[in-house]
């Protein structure tokens, strides 16, 4: 055989072997670092218990297990939204929006499915709404419930549900969208932010025409979105298609564009893998997502089993958002649940005020989470929470915190967050305990020396380490 042919044959064989290996990689058993990486990227922190559950599995099994254990309803409910049992009137709370935010933090800290909450956060940053505009906590809560219900459901249904969501209606001024003076705000955001992405295949005329299609709804006095008689009946021309009637048709038109799948797939990449999506792979993920008629589980599974997700160079290359940082700290330290309000305040200081995204586009994220100010705030909150965690346990039942717990509502099984003793166990194992804790909590080897003669000092140093900001 001529040399060139042998060379080509070898190349082909190598290529085939590599391709086969590529197929087999999801079938390989999880390394501990892989399991930690998966938990950090899909949750808030990797606790020993969560790691133990995943380690016997392969990558594919682990991903499937995490997806299978996601919820469509929260574990807890916000007590303050129920009527006061003594008076049967709405409960008087000083700041309902704070109470709502504290409830969501409580849910994130106590949930048995961090992936669920990560997905709700993702959609909260996609279908944005803010309390400062909506001004009704119940409507924002309802939207949160909607997002959780469909977080890993079907994107087409999620889009349609959000279209009729009252909080979104108010946030995007749909109430002003009457037939005489079409308000283009909503039409623009649906195309630019929710479906196609900015500047993709739609024109200003499409927006003006679509705005006319979105007319004819209003909020009734129970704050539901209902049809009204002033819909603009004239035909509209959107994305080159003539449309006779209303908004559902517009949404269907948009969803027919595969570009929508690409947009969402790109966002999933940025959420779970890296800030530089591989456009070619994204298009493949999008094509499968589109073919699966927008089944979000299909997209998530494919994203989490992609080669790029598991590549060693990815470890510790994403910045934890403020909420991820805080909830991770709280779950790690098993901070007493009375600290819910503290997390709300800290979240705001770190630059992510829940239910208050800075604008319709949401939080930009990535390196933007970190600047001198927020680094200082993160430093402060670590000290506060470590102090709280290392205090004697009896403090958890102090009267003030009991009251706070009552206001925040009980968990569905009536059981408050119970400190799991892994911290105590690690503490009792001297330098070895410190080493284990370092490996557990940090995605990369620490950037600063960690003292190992005193566990409290070590814990503080670990949580202050530069690498703790990363996942």
């Amino acid at each position, binding site marked *: 055989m001529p040399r060139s042919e042998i060379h080509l044959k070898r190349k082909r064989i190598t290529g085939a072997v590599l391709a086969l290996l590529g197929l087999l990689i999801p079938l390989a058993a999880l390394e501990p670092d892989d399991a930690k990486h998966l938990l950090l990227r899909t949750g808030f922190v990797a606790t020993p218990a969560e790691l133990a559950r995943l380690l016997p599995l392969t990558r594919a099994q682990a991903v499937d297990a995490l997806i299978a254990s996601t919820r469509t309803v929260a574990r807890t409910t916000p007590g303050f939204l129920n009527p006061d049992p003594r008076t049967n009137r709405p409960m008087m709370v000083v700041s309902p929006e704070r109470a709502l935010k504290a409830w969501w933090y409580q849910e994130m800290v106590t949930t048995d499915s961090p992936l669920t909450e990560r997905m709700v956060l993702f959609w909260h940053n996609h279908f944005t709404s803010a309390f400062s505009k909506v001004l009704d906590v119940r409507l924002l809560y309802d939207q949160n419930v909607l997002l959780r219900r469909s977080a890993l459901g079907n994107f087409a249904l999620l889009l349609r549900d959000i279209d009729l969501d009252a909080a979104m209606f108010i946030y995007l*001024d749909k109430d*002003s969208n*009457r037939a*005489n*003076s079409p*308000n*283009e*705000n909503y039409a*623009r955001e649906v195309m*630019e932010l929710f479906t196609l992405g*900015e*500047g993709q295949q739609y024109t*200003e005329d499409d927006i003006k025409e679509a705005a006319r299609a979105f007319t004819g709804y209003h909020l009734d006095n129970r704050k539901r979105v209902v049809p009204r008689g002033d819909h603009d009946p004239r035909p509209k021309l959107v994305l080159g298609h003539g449309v006779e009637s209303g908004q559902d048709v517009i949404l269907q038109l948009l969803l027919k564009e595969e570009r929508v799948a690409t947009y969402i797939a790109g966002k999933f990449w940025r959420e779970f893998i890296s800030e530089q999506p591989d456009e070619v792979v994204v298009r493949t993920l999008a094509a499968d997502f589109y073919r699966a008629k927008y089944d979000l589980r299909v997209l998530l599974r494919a994203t989490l089993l992609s080669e790029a997700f598991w590549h060693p*160079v990815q470890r*510790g*290359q*994403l*910045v934890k958002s*403020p909420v991820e940082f805080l909830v991770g700290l709280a779950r790690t330290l098993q901070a007493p649940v009375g600290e819910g309000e503290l997390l709300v305040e800290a979240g*705001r*200081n*770190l*630059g*992510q*005020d829940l239910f208050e995204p*800075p*604008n*319709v*586009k949401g*939080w*930009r994220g990535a*390196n*933007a*989470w*970190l*600047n*001198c*100010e*927020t*680094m*200082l*705030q993160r*430093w*402060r909150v670590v000290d506060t929470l470590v102090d709280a965690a290392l205090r004697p346990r009896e403090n958890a039942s102090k009267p003030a915190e009991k009251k706070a717990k009552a206001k925040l509502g009980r968990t569905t099984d009536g059981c408050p967050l119970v400190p799991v003793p892994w911290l105590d166990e690690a503490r009792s194992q001297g330098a070895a305990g410190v080493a284990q804790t370092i490996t557990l909590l940090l995605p*990369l*080897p*620490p*950037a*600063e*020396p960690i003292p190992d003669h005193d566990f409290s000092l070590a814990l503080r140093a670990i949580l202050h380490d*530069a*690498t703790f*900001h*990363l996942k």
Partner: protein
Amino acid sequence: MHRRDLLKLGGLCALGGMAPGLFTRANAADVSTTPPPLSPPGTPTIAWDRSLVLIELRGGNDGLNTIVPFADPEYYRLRPTIGVRDTDVVRLDQRFGLHPALTDLRAAWDDGGCAAVLGVGYPKPNLSHFRGIEIWNTAADETSEQTLTDGWLSRLYHLAAASAPTDLLAHSITLSSSGAQAHEGLGPFVGHQEQNHFVIDKPEQFIKDIGVIPRLDEDPVAGRTANPALAHVRRLREEITLIGQRFSTLLKAPAPFTTVFPETSLGNQLKSAARFITGGALCPTYKCTIDGFDTHSSQRGAHDYLLKDISSALAAFRTALKSTPGAWERTLVVTYSEFGRRARENGSEGTDHGTAAPMLLLGGRVKPGFHGTYPDLKNLVYDDLGHTTDFRSVYQGIARDFLGFKPPFLVTPGLTPLACCVPG
């Protein structure tokens, strides 16, 4: 070796081996009557001791109700409900006046410390908040749908980097009242991580907090520089240590003014800026942000309140600066917004996204009065105001005349710098 050091080294090398002594004050024995230039001729420089104070009006400020063309009946035809009555307007000349809420700016206008650039926009206006402010922040060209990844000011500072003083406090200080959300407002300062762009909410608390954080030493894991996220964190830790020392020194001295500022977000931001400027901080830019201009409905309530905020905060700022000799002359305040609003009001007593709008300039070096032309209300472009001044001309003018940047900046075919400031 950090990029900042590399940049400085690069600057030195560019001189073709000139003695390092040129960058430090010469020995006493070498002093002559004309001090040696700090950098050789041809090196781009800016006047690092000036203070540009940006005020971003977030949401799209309605220019028509800010500088009101009260003598034009078309204005009232377009705005039957929300138009500002001609009897309410603070008249600046026989055609234009300020919204009554801006009455505190009258003093600045009358003593030559205030200018208004009319009809500022750009061709092919983008009505999206995000792309709109991105265009303003990066001076991107929308006609060619250009995307740039650095802010116009960080780009300018990058070009002038070789001339930056070693004791620069910061390239910019953003004074917004919430941390990372301010990053949206860091827009003009993104893209050059070797520069120092700080976000400072409460200066005194800032100093206290920094003092607690220890220095970060060399990374014990060699060769880990390929992780950009980690590099970002490490760099921030370093900044924190360095600036802590510099800020401490500055704020230990008492405030040189006793002016009372309004207790609004903008009031607090401008008060902090005044503190730094009058304290002699070496920082060429400050950025304030004020939200709420996206007045799609019931505009008169919200917009009027916002203008009042701007008016009283700026008046206090001017007073505070004028109480320190030279401060007002070294400072230029510039207001801007991602776009203006539609000429015609909508059915909700508000206005939708529009195009051209005025920019207000205040400071000791402005060329006072009106610049540019008011958009023609009878000749709208697709129902929107046609811009008459390109915002990049304003940037060019600020760079050349206020910041003293020597080579032409933001060179764009057909655009020339707007002479809105007194050069020198």
